[in-house]
C-alpha cells in the first residue's frame, strides 16, 4: 500500500485527458497551422517571400497568431483542469478519495504540463524532421527552432501556472479566467497608471521615461507583444535567455504558492469569488484603487483639468468598489449601509493619500543638482529624441562646459518655479543629468515658453545645446557620400556628391549654426529647405536639418556654387501670397501664426493678394513660429492645391513698406 501512495495514479491522468484533451488538440492545431503549415505553403510558392532573420518568430510564421494561442490555451487548460475545485459536488468527490491534497494537485499539474508541452513538442518534431529532409535554412535554423521550443515551453508553463495559482485562489471559473489575465498584466498596468498619475502630480516627473525603459519587465504578455518583427537590428528573439530563466523561476514560485494554497484552501469555498476570506478586503481595495486611477487617467487625458481628474477618481473608484462588492457577494443588490461605510472609509483614506503625495515628493520636485556634482547634462524638447539615440546606440551629445551646465541648471530652476504638472504647455523640456557619482537624473516639464524665454535663450545659445539640437555639428564631412537639399515649395532639388563641395557646404553650415542667435533658432527667417545626408551609404540617419535664410554663410556658398536656384525656394516658385493684419484684440486659444491664419480664413477676412516677384521676394524675409506680430503672410505654391501653404509673419518694424501702406 505504501508503494502505491508514492506511485502515480494513471486513472486521474486518463480522466484529465478525457476532460481537457481538447485544449491540447486545439493548441496543437493552432501551432500546426501557424508554423509547419505556413512553412509548407511558403516553400511551395513560386516566388517565396524573403525571410527577415527572425526565423520562427517572423511574420511568415504569423507570430501574432502564435501569441494568440500561447496566451489563450494555457489559461483554458488551467481553468478546465481545475474546474472541479469550483463545483461543490466535483470538489467533494475528488477530495473524498484516499489521496493527499498535494498529491492530487500534482497529478493534475502533471496532466496539464503533459497536455500543454505535447503540442509544442510535436510541432517542434515536425519542423525538426522537415529541416532534415528539406532545405529550410532561409526560414529557420535548428538553433532558432530549439529556442522556439524553449521559449514556447517556458512561457506556456508560466501562463499555465499563473492560471493555476489564480484557480486555487478563487472559487469561480469565470473569475479565474479574468483574474489570470489581470494578474499577468497587473504589474505593468499598475505601473502605467501610477507613473501617469505621478506625472500629473509631481513637477519634473517623467512617466514616459519610466514606462519606456522598463514596462516590459512588468508583464510577460507585454514582453512577448513588444517584440518588433520589422526593421533591422532589433532583438532577434522576443524574449532573451536571461528573462526566460527568470520567467522559469517565477513559474516555480507560482507552483509552490499554488501547492501551498491548494493544501490550505477550504473546500467549502467552491462557488465563492475568493477562496481565501482574508483576501476579500485586499481584493476590494485593489479593484477600487485601480479603477479610481483608471478613471482619473481617462478624464485627465480628455480634459486636463484637476476637477475632472477628481471626478474621474470618484466615478472610477465607485464603479470599482461596487463591482468588487458585487463579485464578492454574487449579487448586484449591494446598496446598504455597510458598503456605504466602507466606501466612505476608502474615500477618506485615498483623499488623504492624494493630499500627501506632493509632500512626500517635495524633495524630488525642488531638487536641482549642484553644478559641481554634474558631470554632463542633456536637454531637449522631449524624451523620445533622447530615447531614439539610446536605442540606436549613438553618441549622445551631452553638454559638458561648466557655463552651459550652469545655464541649464538655471533654466531647470525657472521651470520648477513656473511649471504645473497638470496644466502643461506647448513647450517641452527634458533633462538628463549624468552625475559625477555615476547616477542619472531625469526630469521633464512642459510650460508655455514665454515664461522662461530668458533662461531658455541662455541655454539655446550655448554650443552644447546646439550640438544636441543639430547633430550635424558632430558629422565629419569625409563620411558623407551625398547631400540632398529639397526646397520647401517642392519644385527645386539639389543633390551633390563631390567631396570638395560636401566639405565646403558643411563648413559653411557649421559656422552658421555656431553663430546662430536664439531668435534664429526659435523663429528662423524665410522658407526653409530640407537637407539630408547619406552617411556611409545609409540614408537613414538623424543628421538632417532645416536650412533657413538665416544661414548666411551657407547662402553665400550656395550662390557661389550656383546651387541656390535649385536648393532654395525662389519668388518664381510661389504662385501668390496672401497678407493679413495680425488681429490684436482677439483672445485665441492658441497664439501661433498658422492657427490664427486659419481662423482669419474661416472668418472670411479679405487679404492683400500679392503676385509680383519683387514683392513676394520681400515677403519671404518673414519669420516662422512667431507667436505675436503685426502681419501674417500665407504663401501658396500652386493654385490647384490650396492646402499646401506656408505661413510667415512680420513685426511692425520689419514689414515691407507696401503692406504697411496697404493696411494703413
Amino acid at each position, binding site marked *: 500500500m505504501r508503494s502505491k501512495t508514492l506511485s502515480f495514479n494513471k486513472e486521474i491522468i486518463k480522466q484529465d485527458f*478525457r476532460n481537457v484533451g481538447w485544449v491540447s488538440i486545439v493548441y496543437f492545431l493552432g501551432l500546426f497551422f501557424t508554423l509547419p503549415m505556413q512553412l509548407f505553403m511558403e516553400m511551395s510558392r513560386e516566388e517565396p517571400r524573403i525571410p527577415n532573420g527572425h526565423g520562427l518568430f517572423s511574420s511568415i510564421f504569423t507570430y501574432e497568431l502564435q501569441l494568440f494561442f500561447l496566451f489563450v490555451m494555457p489559461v483554458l487548460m488551467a481553468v478546465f483542469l481545475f474546474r472541479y475545485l469550483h463545483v461543490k459536488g466535483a470538489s467533494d468527490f475528488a477530495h473524498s478519495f484516499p489521496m493527499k491534497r498535494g498529491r492530487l494537485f500534482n497529478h493534475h499539474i502533471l496532466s496539464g504540463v503533459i497536455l500543454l508541452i505535447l503540442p509544442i513538442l510535436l510541432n517542434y518534431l515536425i519542423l525538426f524532421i522537415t529541416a532534415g529532409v528539406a532545405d529550410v535554412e532561409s526560414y529557420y535554423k535548428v538553433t532558432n527552432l530549439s529556442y522556439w521550443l524553449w521559449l514556447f515551453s517556458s512561457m506556456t508553463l508560466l501562463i499555465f501556472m499563473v492560471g493555476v495559482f489564480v484557480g486555487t485562489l478563487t472559487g469561480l471559473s469565470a473569475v479565474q479566467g479574468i483574474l489570470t489575465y489581470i494578474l499577468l498584466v497587473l504589474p505593468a498596468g499598475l505601473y502605467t497608471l501610477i507613473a501617469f498619475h505621478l506625472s500629473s502630480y509631481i513637477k519634473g516627473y517623467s512617466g514616459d521615461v519610466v514606462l519606456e525603459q522598463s514596462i516590459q519587465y512588468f508583464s510577460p504578455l507585454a514582453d512577448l507583444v513588444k517584440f518588433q518583427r520589422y526593421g533591422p537590428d532589433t532583438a532577434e528573439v522576443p524574449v532573451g535567455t536571461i528573462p526566460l530563466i527568470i520567467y522559469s523561476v517565477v513559474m516555480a514560485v507560482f507552483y509552490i504558492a499554488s501547492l501551498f494554497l491548494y493544501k490550505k484552501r477550504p473546500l467549502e469555498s467552491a462557488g465563492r469569488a475568493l477562496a481565501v476570506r482574508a483576501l476579500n478586503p485586499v481584493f476590494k481595495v485593489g479593484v477600487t484603487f485601480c479603477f479610481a486611477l483608471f478613471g482619473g487617467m481617462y478624464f485627465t487625458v480628455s480634459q486636463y483639468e484637476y476637477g475632472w481628474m477628481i471626478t474621474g477618481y470618484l466615478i472610477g473608484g465607485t464603479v470599482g468598489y461596487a463591482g468588487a462588492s458585487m463579485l464578492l457577494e454574487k449579487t448586484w443588490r449591494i446598496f446598504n449601509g455597510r458598503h456605504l461605510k466602507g466606501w466612505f472609509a476608502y474615500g477618506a483614506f485615498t483623499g488623504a493619500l492624494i493630499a500627501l503625495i506632493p509632500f512626500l515628493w517635495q524633495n524630488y520636485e525642488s531638487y536641482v543638482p549642484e553644478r559641481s556634482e554634474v558631470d554632463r547634462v542633456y536637454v531637449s524638447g522631449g524624451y523620445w529624441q533622447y530615447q531614439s539615440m539610446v536605442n540606436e546606440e549613438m553618441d549622445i551629445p551631452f553638454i559638458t562646459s561648466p557655463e552651459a551646465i550652469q545655464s541649464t541648471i538655471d533654466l531647470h530652476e525657472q521651470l520648477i518655479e513656473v511649471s504645473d504638472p497638470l496644466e502643461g504647455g506647448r513647450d517641452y523640456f527634458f533633462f538628463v543629468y549624468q552625475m559625477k557619482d555615476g547616477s542619472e537624473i531625469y526630469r521633464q516639464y512642459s510650460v508655455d515658453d514665454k515664461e522662461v524665454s530668458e533662461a531658455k535663450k541662455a541655454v539655446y545659445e550655448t554650443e552644447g545645446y546646439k550640438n544636441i539640437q543639430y547633430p550635424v555639428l558632430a558629422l565629419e564631412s569625409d563620411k558623407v557620400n551625398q547631400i540632398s537639399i529639397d526646397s520647401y515649395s517642392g519644385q527645386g532639388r539639389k543633390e551633390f556628391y563631390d567631396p570638395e563641395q560636401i566639405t565646403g557646404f558643411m563648413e559653411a553650415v557649421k559656422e552658421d549654426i555656431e553663430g546662430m542667435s536664439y531668435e534664429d533658432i526659435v523663429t528662423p527667417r524665410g522658407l526653409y529647405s530640407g537637407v539630408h545626408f547619406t552617411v556611409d551609404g545609409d540614408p537613414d540617419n538623424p543628421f538632417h536639418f532645416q536650412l533657413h535664410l538665416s544661414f548666411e554663410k551657407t547662402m553665400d556658398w550656395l550662390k557661389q556654387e550656383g546651387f541656390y536656384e535649385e536648393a532654395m525656394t525662389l519668388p518664381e516658385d510661389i504662385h501668390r501670397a496672401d497678407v493679413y493684419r495680425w488681429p490684436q484684440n482677439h483672445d485665441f486659444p492658441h497664439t501661433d501664426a498658422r492657427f490664427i491664419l486659419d481662423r482669419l480664413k474661416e472668418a472670411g477676412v479679405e487679404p492683400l493678394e500679392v503676385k509680383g516677384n519683387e514683392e513676394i521676394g520681400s515677403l519671404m524675409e518673414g519669420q516662422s513660429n512667431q507667436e505675436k506680430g503685426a502681419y501674417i503672410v500665407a504663401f501658396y505654391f500652386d493654385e490647384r492645391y490650396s492646402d499646401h501653404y506656408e505661413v510667415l509673419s512680420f513685426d511692425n518694424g520689419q514689414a515691407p513698406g507696401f503692406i504697411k501702406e496697404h493696411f494703413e
Partner: protein
Amino acid sequence: MIEVQSLYKSFGKEAILKDVSFHVQKGSIYGLLGSNGAGKTTLMRIIAGILKQKNGHVRVLEEEVFDNERIKQKVVFLPDSLYFLPQYTTRQMADYYSKMYDSWDEERYQKLKRLFQLDEKRKISQFSKGMQRQVAFWLAMSSMPDVLILDEPFDGLDAVMRQKVRNVMIQDVAEREMTVLISSHNLREVEDVCDHVGILHQGEILLERDLDDLKADVHKIQVAFQEEAFHPEASGLDILHQEKRGSVFLLIVRGNEGDISAEMKKHRPLVYDRLPLTLEEIFIYEMGGVGYAFENIIV
C-alpha cells in the same frame, strides 16, 4: 471507530457546528438525525476527511481523518447529491475507484452487478436518479470500506431497492464489522436500520441513544384502579408523560419493566396493559420534557 470531540466549524462568520461530540462503535449503524440546516452534511463532510474543522477532534479508526490518506483508504463517503465524472460509464467509474481504493473487490463488483441489474456500459448521466443512487452504492460497496458514510442515502430509492441496499449493507456489518454512519431528516427511514441514533439540532448533538436500550427502557402503559388513591407523582416511578381519561391512566414510564409492573401490582389495578410504542413517540416524550418542539425536528 468514529470519535468526534467538541467539534466546531463555521463558514465565514456563520457557525455551522458548535461543540459536537459523539461516538460510533465498530460494527454499528449510527443514524444521525436532524432537520434541514442542522449541519448534518457539513458534519459528514468533515468525518469523511473532506473539510477541515476549526476546533475539536475527528478521529476515524483512531486517527485524525483530515487529508489522511491511510485512513481515507478505508472510508467511503456517499454525498446526498451524487457526483460522477462527466460522461463516465459505471465500468469506467469502477476502474477509477479500483485505482483509488486498494481494497477494491472486483468479485464483489460482479456479484453486485447481478443484484442491481444495471448496464455497466451505459453513461451514468443517462440513468434515472434512483438508478444513479444504486450505482453509487454499487461502487461504494465494491470498495469494501471499513467505514461507510451515507448522507441521505435512501432518497429516490423505491421500497424494493431500499430493502436490497439495506440487506447488502447489513450483511457487511455482520460479516466484517463495517461501521456505518447514516444521516437522515426522517426517523422512520432509519428506524429499522440503525442501532444507535443521535440528534443534531442547530449545530449541537441533542441526545444520543442506543435504540435497543431505548425500546427496553421506555414503556407505555394503561392502568385503571378501583380506588382513587393512585397518584402517579407519588408512585416513585419515572413518568415522562401522563394522561387521565375517566379512571384510566395513560402513562409513559421510563425504567425496568419488572419494577414498573411490581409497583403497579401494589395498587391492585383493575386494568394493566402495555401498549406498543414507536420510536417517534419515545423521542417526542423524551424530548417533551426538555421543551423542544420535537416533531419539527424529525417528522
